[in-house]
């Protein structure tokens, strides 16, 4: 058996947690009933790996089969690694009518034209997402299956999600994607996170949103809990108002889990008490990073509890509004930037 296949298999089995190993192998369906019986899932991982490698030899599985198994595992557990969102721009007239078979064929042929040794596998998932696994090689080496790039694209939408892509491969992938989806430009959507489902929901607006209204909202009724008549809140009106504002900015119910938001400031230092700094011509460069296990939920909490001022500053509310978590802020300059508000928060 090929050494590289063996290594890929080993690496893959090590990645899959013990409790997921059996369902994943079942779903794969390459093991005969007798072989399945012979696997003892209570054994330690290394022993199982040895057994699977032996089966691998016995059944003469090729790289193709192992890739299948890997894709099944990755598709079922998409919330691993860093995912980056890209946006397709300027659709051609026929962009809306691209269908799967055509996309598959086009993507493969376009990528093969650019790179000689590349292994592409495309699979359609039940939720209409097209999963693409690319193992890259270069002019002299065979495709490296240990470090594949995963691309997720929902057909007929302008969004593409990519994980583990190097800067060298980025232009190649961009070109193949643009040509096969019939768009003209692809650009970075400035959104990244550990959870694919979360960034997808954020970009496609698949979370519960609240819209501004001047009428009394149903929120007050929803949050009414049976409380003691002896306990009364003095500022309940203000609190309800803050909650409404926070929900308008960040949405209601469960929010997509983002891990971080980065603001790159390229603005001039403004502080009337510090004259030497204010008078400098050069912008005061700094990076502000917010990190949390669920960033949007934390920011919403900040606004409802009154730690952050309401209405929520556009700097924070544009994370869900624009669907991005990387911002460059300059002093009213041209370009895709947000206006400066240093006084708030």
């Amino acid at each position, binding site marked *: 058996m090929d050494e590289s296949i063996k290594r890929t298999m080993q690496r893959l089995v090590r990645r899959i947690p013990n409790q997921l190993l059996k369902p994943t192998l079942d779903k794969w369906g390459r093991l005969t009933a007798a072989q399945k019986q012979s696997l003892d899932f209570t054994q330690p991982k290394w022993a199982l790996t040895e057994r699977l490698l032996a089966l691998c030899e016995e059944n003469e599985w090729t790289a193709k089969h192992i890739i299948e198994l890997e894709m099944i595992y990755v598709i079922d557990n998409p919330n691993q690694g860093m995912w980056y969102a890209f946006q397709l721009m300027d659709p051609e007239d026929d962009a809306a009518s691209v269908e799967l078979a055509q996309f598959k064929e086009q993507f493969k042929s376009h990528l093969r034209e650019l790179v000689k040794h590349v292994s592409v596998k495309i699979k359609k998932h039940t939720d209409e997402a097209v999963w693409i696994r690319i193992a890259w090689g270069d002019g002299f080496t065979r495709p490296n299956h240990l470090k594949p790039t995963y691309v997720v694209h929902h057909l007929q939408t302008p969004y593409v999600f990519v994980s583990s892509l190097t800067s060298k491969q980025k232009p190649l992938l961009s070109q193949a994607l643009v040509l096969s989806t019939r768009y003209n430009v692809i650009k970075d959507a400035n959104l990244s996170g550990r959870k694919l489902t979360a960034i997808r929901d954020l970009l496609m607006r698949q979370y519960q949103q609240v819209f501004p209204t001047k009428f009394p909202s149903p929120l007050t009724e929803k949050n009414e809990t049976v409380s*003691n008549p*002896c*306990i*009364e*809140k*003095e*500022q309940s*009106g*203000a*609190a309800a108002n803050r909650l409404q504002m926070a929900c308008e900015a960040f949405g209601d119910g469960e929010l997509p889990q983002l891990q971080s938001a980065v603001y790159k400031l390229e603005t001039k230092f403004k502080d009337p008490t510090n004259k030497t700094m204010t008078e400098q011509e050069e912008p005061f460069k700094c990076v502000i990073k917010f990190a949390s296990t669920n960033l949007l939920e934390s920011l919403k909490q900040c606004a409802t*509890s*009154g*730690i952050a001022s309401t209405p929520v500053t556009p700097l924070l509310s544009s994370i869900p509004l624009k669907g991005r978590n990387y911002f460059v802020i300059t002093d009213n300059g041209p370009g895709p930037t947000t206006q400066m508000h240093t006084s708030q928060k």
Partner: protein
Amino acid sequence: MSLLKPFSKLPGLNTANILLVESEEQLQQKLAEALVEETAVTVNVRLAKSLPLPMENEEHRPRIDLVVFIINLTSELSFQSAEASLKYLDPGYFLGKVCFTVTKARNASVPTERLDAVRKLAASLHCPLVFAEDQTPDGVTSAAERLLTILKVAAGLVPMATALYLSNLTRCTVPPDIDQPSFD
């Protein structure tokens, strides 16, 4: 801007009214629930984030017998908010009807200067300072018990004791060497 006055309204029969002021609204609710458990007297709890209190509640707000400022020591904002709220209290309250409660004092991230600042504030206003544990239910109940003791006196429900008399015994004092560097 209305000042909260201690004697502008008539007291109710066998009732004591307490106002809890906390900018973060974390301990407030739990403490309120523990306070209303008291059966001997009717305890009414009013919760506020900061003072002044809104005008529209003025009518049906009972006479407030004790104002408690809850300060979370891990947050500077909490201290500043309490300090700003003090301005909206009638001076009459400082004759034994104000109390400071400090939470999270055991947290390692608390700068010692902040605790000193709170103690100085309480001492300068002749108010008692109560330390409370907000993580465990036991801590909340014991904090509630201590506040109840002060509240009953402040509401005039304890014969032979007045708020001013009690505050002379319980008020926070600052050791004279608080600003000296320690040599331990």
